[in-house]
Each structure stands twice: as C-alpha cells, then as structure tokens.
C-alpha cells in the first residue's frame, strides 16, 4: 500500500474567486476549509464576508422522524419553481465515542439531484450540542456569498432544548408530527418558543388534529409578546419596535403539511415569504441581525479565550490538580480558581 499522498490545494484567492463565480468544486472545497477550521479559514471568511447578507436563512428543526429532510426537499422544490436558488445545510450527529457520523439526509433529497440551482451539504455536529455544529453559521456565510437566495438549515433531530438555530436563521420552522406528545408537552419551555411558524407534518396521519389543537391552545395562551435575550448570562427584555401594537406583531400559526405529497408546502412557503416581508417592514430584521452579530462575536471570543487560557495552563499542573480532586483534597471549583490565579 502506498503512503498517504497529498494533493494540490487551491489558494484562498482562487477559492474566493471560484465561490463568487459559481464554481461548484471551489465552493465545496471552501466549505470544507471552513468546516475543518483550517488555518486559513479566517482569511477565506474575511474575503467572503462583504458578499454575504443577501440570502434569507430558514431554519428547520424538530424531533427525529418528524419529516424535516422531506419537508426541506419539498420547500427547496417550491423555491426552485418560484425561480429562486437554494442552498441546503443538513446536520446529523457525530458519535461521541468514535467521532464518526452517518449523514443520511440526502436519501430524502434525491429529487433535487441534477439541478444546478441547488447545493446540498451534509454536516456532522462534531461535538456541538445545540442542534447545529460549531461552524454551521460560517458554512451558511459561504453559501450566502456564493449567491444562493434561500438557505435552508436542517438541524439534527432535536429534543426539547436545542434552540441554537434561532440565532442563525431569519425564519425558524419547528416541525412536529402527530402522536409525539400531549398538551403539557406543548406548553413546556424550549424549542416551541423559537418557532416563527409551527408545522405539523404527516398531517394525514391519525391524531393530527389533536396535535394541531394542542399547539394552537399553547399559542392562544402566549404571554405578552415581550422578548427576552440572554446577554452575558443576564436576561434582558428586548424593546421591540412593535411593542404594544397588537396588529403589527408577528402571529405564529400552525400549518399542516404532508411533505411526501407536497401538500401544504406552497402555503408554507408563502408564509415564510410573509415572515420575511414582516421582518423587513417592521424593523425586526435589523434587531435580529444585531442579536445574531452579538451572539456570533460572543462565541468567537469565548472560543478564543478558552484556547488562550488552555494554552497557558501547564499540563503537569492540570494533572496534579485532577489527582488532588480525585483524592478529595480539593474541590473542582477551588482547583479552577487556583489554576486561573496562577496564569
């Protein structure tokens, strides 16, 4: 067997030019470079950043098996029929044991094959827990710079608390299917709160009406419409430009689809378009953009600070402290304080 060979690697300048001019292989390689966080990924993103900000980003999230991939495919087709180009990022989990992943969302997307107006990329979570992978936002940036007009981001099949998609997408769809839970599930905190549109897929199945009623009941008893965000660990009330104006507020509604047959998909696409118009006209888009920028910057800073701090801790020192924790000579909080005090 031959030794591992290396291959020619396109320069950043070549990749940037390729991405901006619709060169699909360069686009694919640029995405890899960003996903792998290679040394020059920052340079690549910096060059592409001025060209992004045009796409509408749609997040699709929900429990495993609710039909997210099929719905994403049907929506992509609907956008193609309307003459818009579509980028898709589909995320599946990485094994915490082997680091491997089985990315299976393409199985449902075969009808999109052969269309030059569509680009599908599968990503593994690579250890992230919020429903996306750490670099999903950067991959969306690359697709946006490449000129795709709508970008659909399909999260991993989520449980109740993976809400990270809401800070990446402009419009978030939360997909439910009949038979997954009762009215109490519907009023729990978490994923349902991030929905701009709730979708009950597989609406031809028994129990669909009950699921829809439960979700609608939840929406009827919604609070005062005030929005809160976490900022440096504190909960802040966001002053929406629409506060108090009942008419102008976005109304979350429940929509029915049977994605395998395409039924309800046209109406869903129109609702997404209506949300986009509302975001732009109400000033909410600017607000969300601001929150997203804060979120992105905070994540980058946190990762970089972690890296810098970790690089200054001597490995021997760390192991010694861990051993002392194990012997109950010191507790983990005091040990951490000790380490930081000696940086």
């Amino acid at each position: 067997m031959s030794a591992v060979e290396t291959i020619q690697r396109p320069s950043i300048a070549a990749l940037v030019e390729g991405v901006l001019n619709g060169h699909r292989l360069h686009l694919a390689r640029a995405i890899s470079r960003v996903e792998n966080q290679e040394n020059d990924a920052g340079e690549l993103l910096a060059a592409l950043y001025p060209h992004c900000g045009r796409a509408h980003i749609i997040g699709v999230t929900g429990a495993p098996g609710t039909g997210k991939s099929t719905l994403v495919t049907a929506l992509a087709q609907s956008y193609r029929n309307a003459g818009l180009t579509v980028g898709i990022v589909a995320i599946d989990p990485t094994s915490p044991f082997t680091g491997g992943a089985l990315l299976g969302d393409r199985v449902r997307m075969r009808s999109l094959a052969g269309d030059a107006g569509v680009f599908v990329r599968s990503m593994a979570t690579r250890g992230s827990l919020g429903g996306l992978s750490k670099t999903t936002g950067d991959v969306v940036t690359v697709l946006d710079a490449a000129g795709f007009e709508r970008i659909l981001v399909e999260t991993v099949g989520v449980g109740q608390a993976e809400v990270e998609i809401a800070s990446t997408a402009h419009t978030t769809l939360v997909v439910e299917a009949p038979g997954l839970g009762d009215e109490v599930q519907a009023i729990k905190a978490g994923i349902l709160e991030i929905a701009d549109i709730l979708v009950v897929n597989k609406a031809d199945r028994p129990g669909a009406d009950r699921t829809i009623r439960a979700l609608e009941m939840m929406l009827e008893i919604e609070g005062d419409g005030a929005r809160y965000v976490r900022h440096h660990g504190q909960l802040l009330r966001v002053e929406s430009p629409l506060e108090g104006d009942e008419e102008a507020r976005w109304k979350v509604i429940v929509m029915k689809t049977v994605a395998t047959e395409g039924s309800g998909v046209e109406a869903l696409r129109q609702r997404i378009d209506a949300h986009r118009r509302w975001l732009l006209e109400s000033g909410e888009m600017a607000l969300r953009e601001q929150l997203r920028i804060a979120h992105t910057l905070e994540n980058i800073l946190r990762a970089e600070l972690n890296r810098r701090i970790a690089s200054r801790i001597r490995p021997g020192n760390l192991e010694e402290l861990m051993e002392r924790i194990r012997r109950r000579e010191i507790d983990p909080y005091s040990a951490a304080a000790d380490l930081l005090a000696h940086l």
Partner: protein
Amino acid sequence: MSERKIRVLVAKPGLDGHDRGAKVVARMLRDAGFEVIYTGIRQTPQMIAEAALQEDVDVVGLSILSGAHMTLCPKVVELLRAQGQDNVLVIVGGIIPEEDVEKLKAAGVAAVFGPGTPSQEYVNFIRNNVKVPA
C-alpha cells in the same frame, strides 16, 4: 485547531434494491470514525458524482450486486475526474467476478472488496490510501 475528518460517500448505483450490504458498510465506516454520507439506492452515476462534489468527499464507495458494474463504475470515475475531483478514491463492493477486478482497476477503481471482507480491511485501505490536501 484544524479538525479534518475522512469523508466517504456510500452509494448504490443502478437498479438493484438490495441495500443491506451498503448499510452495514456505512455503519462500519462510521464506527471507524469517518463521516459517511449515505445516499441510498437507485443512484445514477451523475447523481453520485454530483453528491461527491457537493460533499467534497475523499472516498466514494459503490455497492453493486446487479452485474452492471462494468458500465456503472467506470462512468462514476470518469465523471469525478471530469469535474476535477482527481483525488477521490473510488472503491467497489458487492458481487464482482474475478476477471472483472483488473478491468475495473484499469478504469480507475482503487480497490474491489467482495462479500465477507472483514471491515478492518477496507477501513485500513481507506486510511492508507486517502489523498489528503497538503
């Protein structure tokens, strides 16, 4: 802080619908720590090449039981090379008569693995032969 994974596309070209073997291999590759993109059955060579490009994979694994390997496999290799994916390793699994193995290799297939191949064999083959960008 670069994190590079070996990415493998597993596909079943042609018309036979027996995908158990392909699924088992996909699972074994996953357990070997690779990122496996599984595309399912009834893929045309064009669909496979296009998916390999979008996913920027290092390896394409084709599973064929139908006997159509001599038309399908060289076509996949040809399409991959035509779109500039010179680095991609194409490996084939399934029922391939002995006399066709050399012909497939001459057409650019890197390796052929028959039924009953221990997973360690194709996992090691991939690890040792994958062409990594410098």
